[in-house]
């Protein structure tokens, strides 16, 4: 007998209390398996060794297999892995990935506790821990070694704690991994990259960096921190409760800056050298064709888009006469401001300002067509194309983007500026590396203009090109460019007593840099060498997939020889005894939405990160605007307390002077159709607001509205705030001001301002508040400002 089934329902609604049956009671928090992550970083000079411990608990009634897809610093090499359950410690073994996975599967079937670490991308890793008996826990420890980034005499250690939702282009083709999104034709490994999104709560993060001192400064941009000085070590850690919702970023500079051209270290087997770019007198400037490519996808929503607008504006205002520029915004589609390059002048600058203010976020993150547009067309002889890519980097099609840039940049330089609390550092660094530029990462709440000015020195030609060791092979054998303020690290096999490098300067001259002082260190440089070599082989594989067999074998060989994790090697730790039997529950640990991300993104993240699910416009956003839960660390004041007050006064004065700051409206405000100060601008101090207003209201010719009085007052204000021709984040604005005023120095106010500049440049004190007021008084609004000042 065969009959249709007619499912019917319990007529009594009270009998349908599923929550009760599933043990869901009120607001009781049911924890996810990952209870805590502990991170301890040991930083000495240019290298860092990080100990990471992940604590998994099984709160369920049945045995558990926990899956954790998590990030590690993209340049880091995992060198050790171990699993601890109760008193049993099992050291992980580095094996070929397939073999490790097989051993893990067998252990799983046999009911043994086991842990497996696999790497999916340079920064994306998966830990699986299986057969955790009900009510017990397992600790997994790993060691990561890396070298630190150095820029503008400061080192940065950035430890990622969350993989942000990354956009996946292409049509769905399968779902091989345990992640939350399917594989697509464009990203065939997408299902291994994205953890599910956690709706509430967060896993506790206990993180601390110990930096060998003495240090001149140490700060953290995304966490409020406490700093402890003891002995020769400075310890820095978040001061409040931290969860896995943003990178932990420590920026520090040593008390004694090294000014030798090359520093070298050896552990007896490998040699690491850091090449400082020589400071050269400004070479004849090459006129630039600057393309600013800005990401306005859904993930940029909120504070990040504010920051991106300011970054674009700052780049454009920093251009010089003779430069040409093109602005391109992109999300799912590409929105160029103009079809071709515009000459930089007052009218194109104003047009650009209007366009920038009108940028809105929407849609996906289709980077490939955007990069195609940016590199499109010929660059005329005598001009240098510079592409500045402003984004959070939240896309997952890294290999094809890298391959495209490498093949199609034709001598142009690609600089990436990453803005996020959980930036995709791996992608942005890869793109900069193959794009012949540098990668700069900033926090959305940072002073973006300051960051842009800091890196602007590099937005052109490198100081040296084709830098390579003499007579030795670097782990990355491709010669590298050397940019102002950005030392380059080179790893070589063997212990050497001297190392030398050669490169070419702008004039084509060969420049030799070297040292015969090689410091012996106990740091495992072999792992760093191997990591760098693997990264180079991976880059080669991305640009030439046809060589897969050969390159894969090479990666495997290097990674196995040095016992480091890679895409083709994995660590596995298996306990001897049997812990469980029966069926397991598998839980993939969900990850938090990064701090500062728009809540609306969470509501509709699928459509924002997956190409196959583009939503109807307008359905994208809802809910609240997410704010930082912890304020950033207070930056140490450059001025003493008594001087703080005049800045408030200036803030009030600046607005009538230079007009209101460029429109910055929060996502919520846009929805409501009313202007409102954004979270970012509310938090920025008045000093930053004046500076930012000055930077973005300067005309293309360097004047402020063509008025001598205003321009002179602007210069005086900048000087008062500590900026000069050669110092301070706004030196570019000062330089342009000065140039314009020199053409009008018949005017007494212009002369007065230039005299002040000369005084400061000669080492004199910055102008006093009353000296600046003199300038304000000369303006038509002067009386009003004076009154305001007197009242203050």
């Amino acid at each position, binding site marked *: 007998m065969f009959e249709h089934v*007619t499912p019917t329902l319990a007529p009594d609604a009270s009998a349908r209390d599923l929550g009760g049956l599933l043990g869901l009671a009120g607001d009781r928090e049911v924890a996810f398996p990952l209870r805590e992550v502990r991170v301890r970083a040991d930083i000495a000079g240019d290298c860092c060794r990080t100990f990471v411990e992940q604590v998994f608990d099984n709160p*369920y009634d049945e045995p558990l297999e926990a899956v954790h897809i998590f990030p590690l610093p993209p340049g880091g090499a995992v060198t050790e892995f171990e699993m601890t359950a109760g008193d049993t410690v099992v050291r992980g073994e580095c094996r070929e990935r397939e073999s490790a996975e097989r051993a893990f599967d067998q252990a799983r079937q046999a009911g043994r506790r086991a842990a497996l670490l696999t790497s999916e991308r340079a920064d994306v890793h998966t830990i699986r821990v299986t057969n955790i008996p009900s009510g017990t826990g397992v600790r997994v420890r790993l060691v990561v070694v890396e070298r630190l980034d150095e820029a503008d005499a400061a080192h940065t250690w950035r430890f990622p704690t969350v993989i942000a939702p990354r956009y996946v282009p292409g049509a769905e083709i399968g779902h091989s991994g345990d992640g939350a999104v399917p594989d697509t034709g464009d990203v065939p490994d997408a299902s291994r990259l994205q953890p599910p999104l956690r709706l509430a709560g967060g896993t506790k993060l206990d993180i601390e960096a110990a930096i060998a001192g003495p240090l001149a400064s140490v700060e953290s941009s995304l966490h409020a921190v406490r700093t402890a000085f003891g002995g020769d070590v400075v310890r820095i850690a978040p001061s409040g409760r931290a969860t896995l919702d943003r990178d932990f970023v420590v920026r520090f500079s040593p008390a004694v800056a090294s000014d030798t051209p090359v520093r070298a270290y050896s552990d007896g087997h490998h040699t690491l050298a850091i090449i400082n770019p020589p400071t050269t007198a400004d070479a004849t400037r090459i006129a630039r064709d600057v393309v600013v490519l800005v990401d306005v996808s859904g993930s940029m929503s909120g504070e990040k888009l504010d920051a991106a607008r300011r970054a674009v504006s700052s780049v454009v205002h920093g251009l010089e006469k003779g430069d040409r520029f093109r602005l391109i915004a992109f999300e799912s589609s590409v929105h160029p401001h103009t079809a071709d390059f515009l000459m930089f002048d007052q009218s194109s600058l104003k047009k650009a300002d209007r366009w920038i203010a009108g940028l809105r976020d929407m849609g996906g993150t289709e980077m490939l067509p955007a990069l195609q547009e940016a590199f499109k067309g010929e660059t005329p002889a005598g001009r240098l194309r510079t592409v500045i890519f402003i984004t959070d980097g939240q896309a997952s099609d890294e290999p094809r983007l890298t391959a495209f840039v490498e093949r199609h940049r034709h001598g142009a330089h690609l600089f990436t500026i990453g803005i996020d609390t959980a930036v995709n550092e791996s992608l942005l660094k890869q793109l900069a590396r193959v794009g012949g530029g540098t990668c700069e990462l900033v926090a959305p709440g940072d002073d973006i203009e300051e960051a842009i000015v800091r890196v602007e020195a590099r937005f052109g030609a490198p100081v040296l090109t084709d830098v390579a060791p003499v007579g030795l092979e670097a782990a990355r054998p491709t010669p590298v460019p050397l940019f102002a303020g950005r030392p380059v690290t080179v790893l070589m096999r063997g212990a050497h007593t001297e190392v030398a490098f050669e490169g070419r300067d702008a004039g084509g001259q060969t420049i030799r840099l070297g040292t015969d002082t090689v410091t012996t260190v106990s740091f495992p440089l072999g792992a760093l060498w191997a990591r760098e070599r693997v990264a180079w082989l991976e880059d080669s594989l991305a640009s030439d997939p046809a060589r897969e067999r050969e390159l894969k074998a090479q990666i495997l060989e290097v990674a196995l020889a040095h016992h480091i994790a890679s895409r083709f090697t994995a660590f596995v730790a298996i306990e001897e005894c049997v812990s469980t039997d029966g069926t397991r529950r*598998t839980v993939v640990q969900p990850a938090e939405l990064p701090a500062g991300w728009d809540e609306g993104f969470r509501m509709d993240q699928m459509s924002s990160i997956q190409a196959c699910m583009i939503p109807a416009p307008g359905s994208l956003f809802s809910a609240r605007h997410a704010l930082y839960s912890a304020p950033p660390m207070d930056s140490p004041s450059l001025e003493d307390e008594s001087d703080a007050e005049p800045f408030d006064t200036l803030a009030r004065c600046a607005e009538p002077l230079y007009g209101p700051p460029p429109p910055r409206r929060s996502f919520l405000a846009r929805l409501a159709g009313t202007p409102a100060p954004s979270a970012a601008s509310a938090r920025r101090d008045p000093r930053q607001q004046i500076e930012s207003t000055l930077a973005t209201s300067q005309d293309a010719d360097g004047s402020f509205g063509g008025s001598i009085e205003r321009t002179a007052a602007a210069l005086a204000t900048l000087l008062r705030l500590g900026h000069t021709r050669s110092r301070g984040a706004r030196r570019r604005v000062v330089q342009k001001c000065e140039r314009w005023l020199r053409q009008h120095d018949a005017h007494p106010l212009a002369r007065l301002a230039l005299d002040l500049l000369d005084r400061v440049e000669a080492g004199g004190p910055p102008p006093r508040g009353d000296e600046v007021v003199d300038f304000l008084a000369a303006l038509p609004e002067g009386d009003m400002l004076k009154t305001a000042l007197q009242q203050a």
Partner: protein
Amino acid sequence: MTDSNPLARLRHQHLTLDDLVDVAGRLLRQLDVRSDDGRVTAVPDDRGVRYYQTLGLVDKPLRYDGRRAIYGYRHLLQLLAVKQLQQEGNPLHLIQQTLAGRPTEALERGLETMLADPAASPDEGPGTGRAQVVTSPRPAAPPAGTPPEPHPAASTQPSVGPASRRSSASRQSLFDDAALVATRLAPGVTLVVDPEIVGDPATLINALTDFLHARRKEH
């Protein structure tokens, strides 16, 4: 879940995303799930299912048929559980925590009362029907890393018993105009029937099964 579970026949059903949404939608409409303002709670659409997948509330598909994701019984239970828990007023973040990786039997137990068929009296017991509803000729490999799905009665006894023989105008059959019913007649032979056109598929299936059985004996 006992065989009075009206969803039992779906244990080995393979559904496309559209089918999954359709079946879940029908069941939820039957449940007459209402939200506070009296409107019927939105039944999940394909985007909803995707969203739940990104939250880990719904597992990844069983497999892909070309580019089409194929879902199954467990996914259906997960969808129903999410909707039922929402209906009971639980916030989604608590549902996310409580449903994470929850085993199929636990979902069945939870949903049992909710879906109980009052018409199927316990004394009726398992039927004698020979046909099994199995759309896939071989059991789909469980996705890597997920615990093997329990295959309770299905392989040893018919998963489709003589369920309710009573028909009621108020009751709407799950398959009234649902997707095709596929039945494995013998190893390697699967029959697909459109219940809308073939009024009495059971007779046809049984006749064909007998025929194949006889043929096999002959050879």
